């Protein structure tokens, strides 16, 4: 075999896929803007398909909450919208034509969600509402959408964001997705006995949350990226980033073959490596 090396997107897909377990229910929601659609919609779809084809045959994929276990290789659009006439013809195991599908969320049945934000802080709190003062914000954002439930009702949330200094802040200006709030014990105090963010995945690195301090901890840096590059773009305090990150594992040859040949054969979902 003489393949192109994995692209950054394929590495990210592989990270997500490993975070998904068998017998789980995964939920994908709406994204705004082309970059978010790539990171937060296309990457998770490929990753969910990869997990199902490898280690998670009994998992269940809710795309936009209504397309269930679609044949990802036959995706009819680039998922620029959650809905659309052609998406209704996507070969799938089930469709749900009503908002009743939200019942699985309200009943705490969803294991994993995918989220993004304009700001994430060191405790994994997310903000899609407003930068600056809520009443007179410097930047008004899209609104909470489904983010509150992702962080309060789901089993865990994978945060996927472009790694830019302005997005990684010490304290978000508005909490639309409750991470670990102000630290250990805060979620539990509010009755949030499960859930919360499990990972921040960026185009440069992977963070997880320390079980004791609840602080984001740099776990691995993607191949080809230096630690200095990561730290330069990480806005929250460096104290919280132990200097022992490893290199993010690349997808196996088998996984790469599945992604490129079975899951996304025509490159609709993942930008293709050139060369």
């Amino acid at each position, binding site marked *: 075999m003489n393949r192109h090396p994995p692209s950054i997107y394929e590495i990210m897909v592989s990270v997500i896929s490993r975070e998904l377990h068998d017998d789980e229910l995964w939920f994908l929601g709406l994204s705004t803007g082309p970059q978010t659609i790539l990171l937060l919609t296309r990457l998770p779809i490929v990753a969910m398909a990869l997990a199902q084809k490898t280690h998670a045959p009994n998992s269940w994929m809710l795309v936009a909450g209504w397309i269930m276990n679609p044949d990802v290789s036959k995706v009819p659009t680039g998922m620029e919208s959650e809905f659309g006439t052609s998406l209704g013809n996507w070969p799938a195991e089930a469709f749900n034509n009503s908002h009743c599908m939200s019942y699985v969320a309200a009943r705490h049945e969803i294991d994993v969600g995918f989220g993004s934000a304009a700001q994430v802080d060191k405790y994994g709190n997310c903000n899609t509402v407003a930068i600056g003062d809520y009443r007179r914000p410097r930047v008004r954002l899209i609104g909470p959408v489904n983010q*509150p*439930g992702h962080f309060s009702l789901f089993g865990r949330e994978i945060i996927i964001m472009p790694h830019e200094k302005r997005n990684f802040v010490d304290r978000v200006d508005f909490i639309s997705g409750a991470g670990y709030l102000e630290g250990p014990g805060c979620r539990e105090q509010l*009755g949030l006995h499960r859930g919360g963010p499990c990972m921040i995945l960026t185009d440069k690195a992977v963070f997880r949350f320390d079980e004791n301090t609840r602080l984001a901890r740099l776990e691995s840096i993607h191949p080809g990226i230096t630690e200095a590059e990561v730290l330069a773009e990480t806005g929250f305090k460096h104290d919280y980033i132990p200097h022992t990150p490893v290199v993010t594992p690349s997808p196996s040859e088998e996984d790469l073959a599945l992604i490129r040949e079975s899951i996304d054969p025509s490159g609709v979902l993942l930008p293709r490596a050139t060369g």
Partner: protein
Amino acid sequence: MNQEPAIKLISLRDAATLISNGSRIHLGGMAVHNHPMAFVYELIRQGTTNLTIVSHVSASDVDLLIGAGHVNRLEFSYVGLEEFGTAPCFRRAVEEGQIELAEYSEPVAFERFACSARGMPFFPTREMIGTDLPRVNPDIKQISDPFGSGDYHAVSAAEPEWVIIHAPAGDKYGNILFFPNRQLPEDLDITATRSSANIIVTVEQIVAHERVKQLPYLNLVPRFRTTAVVEAPFGAHPYSCLHVYDQDREHLAHYAAVARTVEGFSGYLEHYVHAVETHDQYLELIGAARLARLRQIGGAW
């Protein structure tokens, strides 16, 4: 003596005059699908002011009304353009403190309509716990489960005075037909019609009453609940009417780009709304070839 029921088919202009200044309205559709845009343009032309919009996932339907200065208050979960990014007028108006906001998580915003449809005044939820939404929204109240499971947020029913949706077809009596394989935007619209006693439906096509009787399972807004029905082909443009035509991505990208400035937005508003007197003129402005290519052939009946 078989008597004929009342005919509810009226003009777009007459339908829009039903909405008084200061009304509390819901505009159907979700994200980039099925918004009653022809009706929105007509509301703007008529200058209907001081509107409260009760919504869930809105796009330029609400962005245009805000930008044109018609909205006092917005109850919502999202205003944005999906792949085309944020909603420029909404953003500008909020940053300048021009409209009152009451925001909710998305399923809660949906549920508010289901709650009105079920005749309930409020419902309990825990999904916004931990967020700052209850801090900034005084309409998210506290309640205890009388069965002992602890504290909840109480959220009020949506209670729109008027619901305006865009649907595939209807007859002149106000029976409205939907497709069998509906998606969330269509289902939310049906629920929304059940949340109010005053319903205006713009439809792609008025069909014979006999067609309704052939498809009674798809008559999901029966005429006894419809206030008025309006024929507005391509009435959701530049958004899709699911199964009938796609969203006009070029147009939406153009809107997202020009509306970033007040001047750009004003130019858009002048060109596509104020300089146009009728919906037919709007369609001519968009052009036959463009509309022809947005169509989806092979619908679902």
